[in-house]
Structures are given as structure tokens and as C-alpha cells.
């Protein structure tokens, strides 16, 4: 039995040890906003925030997250009330197909919380572990840059 907090809600579940945190979020909790791309830690689509740090949820077993606090894309905002970063993604056309977007957003949130992001170089380095096959990187960088400059949180 594991017990963990996801977006402020406490869940208790019986899980098989081999269940990844990504599959746990999607299949056990129905939080399908976290996307599973490569399942080998390369693409970054499954990035979530675990105890305050962005991590690959495909490279973490749910049992390892026992007692942890998780934030997923569902915790950012809602359709009617987008978070500042989500709103900025919308305004800057920072997504095309949207598959990589949950990972881009969660990485962006981690970057915005921890780093000054004084240069676009820092944003690019921070995003280097997230792949977008629509090649939409320029717009993602601009969206994060705009949130840094607005200075009103992630």
C-alpha cells in the first residue's frame, strides 16, 4: 500500500512494484494529462514535479513515491482559469499537437521557481531534456521568457 499526495489530494493505493509513477498517475488515478512518450527517460513528456523537483515519471516507480508530494499538469490551472505559464503558452503558440506540452509546462514551472532565467540560453538549457517533434521550441522559449518578464509567478 502506498500513500501519496497528488495536486493536494491524498491517495492510497495497492500497487505492483513495477508500475511506473507515470502509469500510476494515468491508469490508477485517471490523471491522463501526464503523457508517456518514450518510457526511457529521453523525451520528457512525462515530467512531473516530485517533492519540488521536476523528474521523469517514467523513470520512477510508484512505490518509490510513497509519501511524496506530486504536482502534475492537472494541478496548474483549468480550462477557464489557466495558470500564468499555460496562458503564456496559449498566447505565444507554444504548442502544435500538444503531446509534449505537459512535460514542457512542468519543466517550465520548475525552471521559473528556481532560476532567475536571465538569458534565453538558461531557458534553452533547462528545456534541453524535453523533445517536441513539431519543432516548436522557439515559441516555448518565448512563452517562458514572457512569464519571467511579467514577474507574477508560474
Amino acid at each position, binding site marked *: 500500500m502506498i500513500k501519496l499526495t497528488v495536486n493536494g489530494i491524498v491517495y492510497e493505493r495497492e500497487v505492483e*512494484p*513495477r508500475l*511506473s509513477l507515470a*502509469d500510476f498517475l494515468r491508469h490508477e488515478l485517471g490523471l491522463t494529462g501526464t503523457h508517456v512518450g518514450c518510457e*526511457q527517460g529521453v523525451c*520528457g513528456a512525462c515530467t512531473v514535479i516530485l517533492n519540488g523537483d*521536476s523528474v521523469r515519471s517514467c523513470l520512477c516507480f510508484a512505490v*518509490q513515491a510513497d509519501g511524496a508530494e506530486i504536482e502534475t499538469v492537472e494541478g496548474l490551472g483549468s480550462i477557464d482559469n489557466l495558470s500564468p505559464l499555460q496562458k503564456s503558452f496559449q498566447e505565444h503558440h507554444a504548442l502544435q499537437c500538444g503531446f509534449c506540452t505537459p512535460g514542457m509546462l512542468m519543466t517550465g514551472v*520548475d525552471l521559473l521557481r528556481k532560476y532567475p532565467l536571465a538569458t534565453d540560453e538558461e531557458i534553452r538549457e533547462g528545456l534541453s531534456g524535453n523533445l517536441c517533434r513539431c519543432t516548436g521550441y522557439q515559441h516555448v522559449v518565448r512563452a517562458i521568457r514572457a512569464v519571467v518578464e511579467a514577474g507574477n509567478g508560474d
Partner: protein
Amino acid sequence: MKPAAFEYLAPVSLAEAVAALGRDDAKILAGGQSLVPMLNFRLRAPSLLVDIGRIPGLDYIEDDRAGGLRIGAMTRHHTVETSDLLRQRFPVLHAAMQYVAHLAIRNKGTIGGSLCHGDPAAELPGLMLLLDARLKTTQRTIAAEDFYEGALDTALAEDEILTEILLPPLPAGTGWGFEEFARRSGDFALTAVGATVGEEARIVAIGAHETPLRLRAAEALFPDIEAAAEAAREEVSPNDDLHGSADYRRHLVSVLTRHALMSAREGAAS
């Protein structure tokens, strides 16, 4: 892309962990950033994973009071990367950390995990050779140079756990250089070379041999950097793969050796 079933234990002491490892084909889970992909690909299918992430007291960077550092094996890459003390004492290690994977991987991956995984193209094993690290385990202390026996193969026994990395002080005025060539930021090195220059030179090649390798012939030729760079080419035995031929990697080792030695010599002189 799902791992084979395994049993899972999360001991809270090293003694418990060592006892659990006595069982056949158990595997230690540290940060999991190398092991879990291998499990997902089913390149490994251990019957038991022993998660050492809940054992207290393995996550620290401490002054050894002699100019060196002690680093707990479960210290995460991001902690190593952002440690001011480490940057002051071992700037070459700090510089190399910038090449280790990506933010989300560095947030979970551990220094001990990377060292025990022993990927020949990973930066940290090579840096341990360069800095003459001592690796403390639940049984003994092993010199970094004696730690790697082959690709993904270390001197560790099945029930032995790496607990601490001891970095001896670098002599005052030591210059350093670290040069890496990778296809994409954060990817494994196609090859990398680290060098320190003090009274003598020390050079390590990464991703160009089945283990990280000290380039002793090149070291002996320093301060003739051109000759050292030529010798470096012949000391490594790289593989061909789809990212580059063995010849290309030899060429890179030579060029990167020259650049790393030039940076190191400049740093030592200033």
C-alpha cells in the same frame, strides 16, 4: 516497454540492504535514471530491487578538513552541480556536471548510482579517475582506478554498496580542462577528455574505451601538447557505432586532449 515483475524492498539501514542483496540476482536501485530504462527495455530483469533511497545519511557534501571533500553516494547530480564548496575545490568536476544529462534526470540521478552503473561514456566515472577519488563501500575503500573492470562492470561484489566518494585535495595552482563532444546537449559523450596540470599532467578519456581511461603515454609527453595529443589517439580503443566510427572517436580524443591540456596549462600558469 514495461519492466518484468520484481519484488521491491526499501530498507532503512545499510545492514538491512546488504542482507537483502545476498539473494540471487538482486539489484540496487539508487536514483534509477540508468537502471530503470534498462529494466523497461528488459535488458535486465532482476527478481528483487533493493531501493537504497530511504536509507538516511547518504546524501551530503562535506569538507574533509584537509582540502578535499566527502560526498555521500546518494547525493543527487543537481546537488553536486550546485554546490559552491565543490565548485571552489574541484572546478573541473563542476564544469563536467554541466554535461550530465538534463535537469529532470539530474534531479533524481545520484553520483553513486552513476559510478556503479559504470557507463564508459558517462562523465562522472572518468572524473573520479581524473581526481584520484577513493570509493568507500560497505566492505572497503577502492581507488577509482581499480573500480572499473569493463563496460558497465565494476569491482563491487554482489552484496557491496558504495557509500561515499572521497576526493583528495588538488594541489594549489592546479589547472584543469574539460572538453566534451556530444550530438545533443545532455546526451552521452561521443567522447570527452578531462585534464589537470600541476607538477605533472593527468589526462582521462571518456567514451573512447570500454572503461574511462587514463592516458598515461600522453601524460608522460606533457608539456609537449602536440605530442601528447598524438599519443592520446593511440591509447584508446573506441567502438564503431551509428554516432561515429572508431577512427572519428580517436580523432576527437586527440583534438579534445589538445584543447583540455591547453586550458589546463593556462589555468595552472595564472
